């Protein structure tokens, strides 16, 4: 515990940092949603430039969703992943598609960055925080691609090493023996992820937390009334109207 050197550093990076970043993430996200609801979105620039936008945003988002879901599944169901990977063919399919998704994500990101630099209108709506996010993403995706290429087979060792480490954090019994021996590129990937989690709630990344949830189930029209009225008065029979008395 009191040893100096790499072990202390590991403790800071893989025990203290994840908890700090998670706490920051939760507190700031919730506080911002409650008190600054107006700021809770991304700042879309599609209106200012409509063509290049498609080639950056779409591959990036679909790529990152696949990669992110992959990490979460491997964290939640490590045994099932190991079972799946027990056949080489299935392992190649899994690793191959994950790698393609990550490449898609990288291509999209590069395209987004080029658009941000070259289009004068888009430059105007780009903040310093946006550049920090881009830098963080570059580190994150490149380190991930490197690990996938040179420390194979990630999907299997994630299930047997990273998943138990993450679970040890969740159960508040942090055990860093799983990660201390890992190659430094993997460590970089993990630390970069924690950085992103800590930084996200201050930036446009909060848009990850808003999904069109009620839309998918609500009726087409929305009507709001002042004050409180008896439900019958608001009429449930009206043409497909969804009634919301929140204001």
């Amino acid at each position, binding site marked *: 515990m009191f040893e100096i050197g790499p072990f202390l550093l590991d403790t800071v990076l893989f025990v203290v940092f994840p908890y700090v970043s998670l706490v920051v993430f939760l507190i700031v996200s919730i506080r*911002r949603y409650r008190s*600054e*609801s*107006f*700021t*809770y*979105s991304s*700042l*879309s*620039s*599609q*209106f*200012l*430039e*409509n063509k290049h*936008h*498609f080639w950056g*945003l*779409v591959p*990036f*988002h*679909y790529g990152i969703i696949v990669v992110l879901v992959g990490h979460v599944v491997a964290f939640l169901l490590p045994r099932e992943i190991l079972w799946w990977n027990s056949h080489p063919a299935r392992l190649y399919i899994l690793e191959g598609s994950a790698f393609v998704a990550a490449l898609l994500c990288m291509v999209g990101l590069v395209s987004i960055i080029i658009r941000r630099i070259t289009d*004068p*209108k888009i*430059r*105007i*709506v780009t*903040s*310093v*925080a946006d550049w920090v996010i881009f830098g963080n993403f570059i580190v994150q995706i490149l380190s991930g691609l490197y690990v996938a290429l040179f420390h194979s087979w990630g999907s299997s060792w994630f299930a047997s090493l990273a998943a138990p480490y993450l679970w040890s954090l969740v159960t508040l019994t942090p055990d860093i023996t799983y990660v201390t021996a890992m190659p430094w590129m993997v460590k970089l990937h993990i630390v970069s992820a924690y950085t992103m989690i800590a930084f996200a709630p*201050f*930036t*446009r990344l*909060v*848009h990850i937390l*808003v999904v*069109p949830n*009620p*839309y*998918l189930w*609500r009726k087409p*029209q*929305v*009507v*709001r*009334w*002042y*004050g*409180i*009225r008896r439900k019958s*008065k*608001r*009429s449930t*029979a*009206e*043409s*497909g109207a*969804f009634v*919301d008395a929140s*204001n």
Partner: protein
Amino acid sequence: MNVRSQISMVFHLDKCIGCHTCSIACKNIWTDRKGTEYMWWNNVETKPGTGFPTKWEDQEKYRGGWELRDGKLVLKSTSKAKTVTNIFHNPSMPSMDDYYEPWTYKYDELFNAPEGSDQPTARPVSMVTGEYINVESGPNWDDDLGGSRIYAESDPNLKGLSEEQRQQLSAVERLVLFYFPRICNHCLNPSCVASCPSGALYKRGEDGIVLIDQKRCRGWRACVAACPYKKTFYNWSTGKSEKCVLCYPRLETGEAPACFHSCVGRIRYLGVLLYDADRLEEVAKLPDEQLIDGHRSLILDPHDPEVIAAARKNDIHDSVIESAQNSPVYKFVKEWKIALPPHIEFRTLPMLFYVPPMSPVMANRNDDTVSSVSDEFFHDIEQARVPLQFLANLFGAGHQGKLLYALKKQKAVRVYRRSRTVGDIPMKTAEAILREADCTVEEAEGIYKLTSLCTFEERFVIPPMHREEAIEMMKDPQEHKTAVGFGFLDPPKRGL
């Protein structure tokens, strides 16, 4: 019957002089902020012309409004499934190029330029980037047809017009145009509201004004694509969408909206309509040629005791019912049937109606002489300079019947008044023309009075909004009064 009240509007196009005073009044109050410079919640277009944003009426391009698919009413631009798959890039979204890049001038260069042999100039600079730009389009670029035929010839409403009729519109020295002022229609079946993934858009229950909740808007831009009139706008600086609010803070204190109040030609009328909210979907699904009649049938007679009883049952205040009984909009739309909704084929059931314009008198030029085409005092409506089909494409879903009726009645009123005031047309002839136009003498007097002699109070019949009663439902108004009136205004700041 589920009675609701809606603040509705009539624009009398024959009176519009195209001065843009309404646009400027609106701009100065609402859209001079950063990110909104390009927005014109109120704008005035020249017709025939391409409008703002360019060719907004062409839904093959913009995909706004509703369409009937297998008997179902669906949005053209999106659906629940498409909202999820297209959430990162909205394929139906217009871009700034479809509107224009807003600009200002470097006025200080006029004063600070060093002494020299040339005249200092104020060069245009973009209000987005701050850099010098070459101005290539603007919000009323084709105003008065903009000195070129291409604008008029690109009007989507020319569909179905013969070559001869097109020639008639744009023949040199016989060119004809009229003005078409536009604001949000505060529709009964708004496609912007239906498309919003965050549920930020809503219709106010008490007065039907359609608003965007800025705190709930997540900048998904679906409303911009879904509105067929292109009257929701994306603020590129705050990342939220904004639209005409019908100056509700003014309405709530009994004042007319700024664009109405400032209208020089006094073309604008505002009043309450009572309508049956239970039949909206049924009407919005009618075939094109029945839409106008269907839309009118939604509007209820505020003098009918049954309607009054149903309105009271729905908590509509007696003062609002009384306001509906005096509504100038009710007279134009329902009693006289001379005001028509714009592009009802978009099926949003707009609540802004237009009295279609009469064309200038027709004359033929034979060498050096000009002679009237018609023997009648006013020319034949069907021979009008603006082809009836053009107006029908704008205000009749492509069908001429309702347009013909409205224009004939207007013409009959003119003949009748000419007979009354000048006397060179026998009253018998005038009365016959009135009868033919389905108009009584009383009605003609009413139309004449509300068109020509209308006072401020007759044009704007604003119902009391009764906020105090709404507050009463929540807490003691006296207590509320002492708890408000002092606060802080924050700029629309985003995160890092």
